[in-house]
């Protein structure tokens, strides 16, 4: 189980990295934390011609307070996010999700940009970005563009990132006044989710003004449960029937089955995750 041959570049400047990706014409892959890419290369499932190691690009690191938003460099590692007071204070939903990601040694290397780029349907952070209406910042030789998380995750390991683009940062609006809930159902500690829910809910008085509900581990990608969101909009907190309607509305989702859980099982667990996330952070 050894990786096939590849070329390796560690550019010191962003320009070089973008040139390398453009020159690779799809056969060059960015190497971020490597915690998913390396296993795929060891299995020879991924066989890039060239790896463009982003480690030397200092501008991709770090967490910045940008007023209404928090900007997270794509190469920021999970462990750095977990240690960040800014994340804990301003992006509590992300802070809540981080300990659920894999194991310490993986979190010491794995990066948020790498996870978003891979778009594993069972990964936590794509759902968190959906619930928080985050933005993916992409750059190529042609310039920079900002893609809403809702437009970024397109399908099974498929995103809006072009092969010559790098994710340079994630932008997340500060959580001002939102309630958050998160629940993940996995077989073992650190396993990918059988189902999970990330919620960001605006409440005024006892009334739900807006609920953003993102599910992960249940379909081909992390996705918003729009029917459930509609069912909860305007509901009074503590009104169990609204939550029941929201869970029933999950039926609209195209649930995916695999060896770990069938589609009907995932449909059921998505409802459980939604209820538990709601109970944890909203109700």
């Amino acid at each position, binding site marked *: 189980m050894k*990786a096939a041959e*590849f070329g390796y570049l*560690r550019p010191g400047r962003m320009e070089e990295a973008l040139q390398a990706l453009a020159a690779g014409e799809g056969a060059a892959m960015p190497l971020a934390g490597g915690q998913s890419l390396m296993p795929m290369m*060891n299995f020879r499932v991924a066989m890039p011609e060239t790896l463009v190691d982003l480690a030397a690009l200092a501008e991709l690191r770090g967490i910045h307070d940008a007023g209404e938003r928090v900007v997270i460099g794509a190469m920021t590692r999970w462990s750095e996010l977990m240690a960040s007071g800014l994340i804990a204070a301003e992006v509590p939903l992300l802070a809540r999700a981080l300990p659920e990601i894999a194991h310490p*040694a*993986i979190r010491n290397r794995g990066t948020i940009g790498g996870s978003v780029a891979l778009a594993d349907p069972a990964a936590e952070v794509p759902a968190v970005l959906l619930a928080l209406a985050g933005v993916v910042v992409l750059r190529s030789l042609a310039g920079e563009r900002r893609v809403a998380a809702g437009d970024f995750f397109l399908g099974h390991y498929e995103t809006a990132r072009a092969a010559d683009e790098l994710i340079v940062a994630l932008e997340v609006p500060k959580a001002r006044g939102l309630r958050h809930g998160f629940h993940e159902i996995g077989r073992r500690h650190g396993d990918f989710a059988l189902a999970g829910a990330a919620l960001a809910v605006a409440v005024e008085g006892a009334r739900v003004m807006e609920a953003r509900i993102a599910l992960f581990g249940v379909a081909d990608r992390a996705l918003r449960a729009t029917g459930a969101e509609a069912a909860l909009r305007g509901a009074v907190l503590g009104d169990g029937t609204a939550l029941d309607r929201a869970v029933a509305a999950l039926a609209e989702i195209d649930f995916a089955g695999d060896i770990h859980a069938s589609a009907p099982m995932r449909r059921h667990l998505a409802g459980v995750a939604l209820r538990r996330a709601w109970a944890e952070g909203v109700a």
Partner: protein
Amino acid sequence: MTGMARLTCRVNGEEVRAEVPVRRNLLDFLRNDLGLTGSHAGCEHGVCGACTILVDGVTVRGCLMLAVQAEGAEVVTVEGLAESGRSAALAAAFTARNALQCGFCTPGMIASALEYIDGGGGPDRAAIRAHLSGNYCRCTGYQAVVDAVCDVIGGAAK
């Protein structure tokens, strides 16, 4: 840059200069190029934890890092932890509790346990189990490992 690459790093306190195939992972480099066979290849896809080592002070999977990514890094393996005495208390506790059987997972287990202890982790059995859950052990049933970590922390287990 294809094929081979130059690598300069520090391993267990010694400077290492080497020419390595870029596709060689850090684990294979340590084991086969440097003869540091204490870190073990259990799965080569980052799940079992038997290759867990310290890079720049934090635990990483040796199989999920290319050797060339260690450029300029400070790498410490179980051999280094033993030589420097950093793992002495854990080793004594592992022995006293029989927290190892075949010993294949042990070097990774030591690295992860050390990170927990040095990070100020308390004698909370559930927290220790959670922290070590990325390190498979197929022999002990884990209990003795948790006991040993608690012993080193020194408090009564919750």
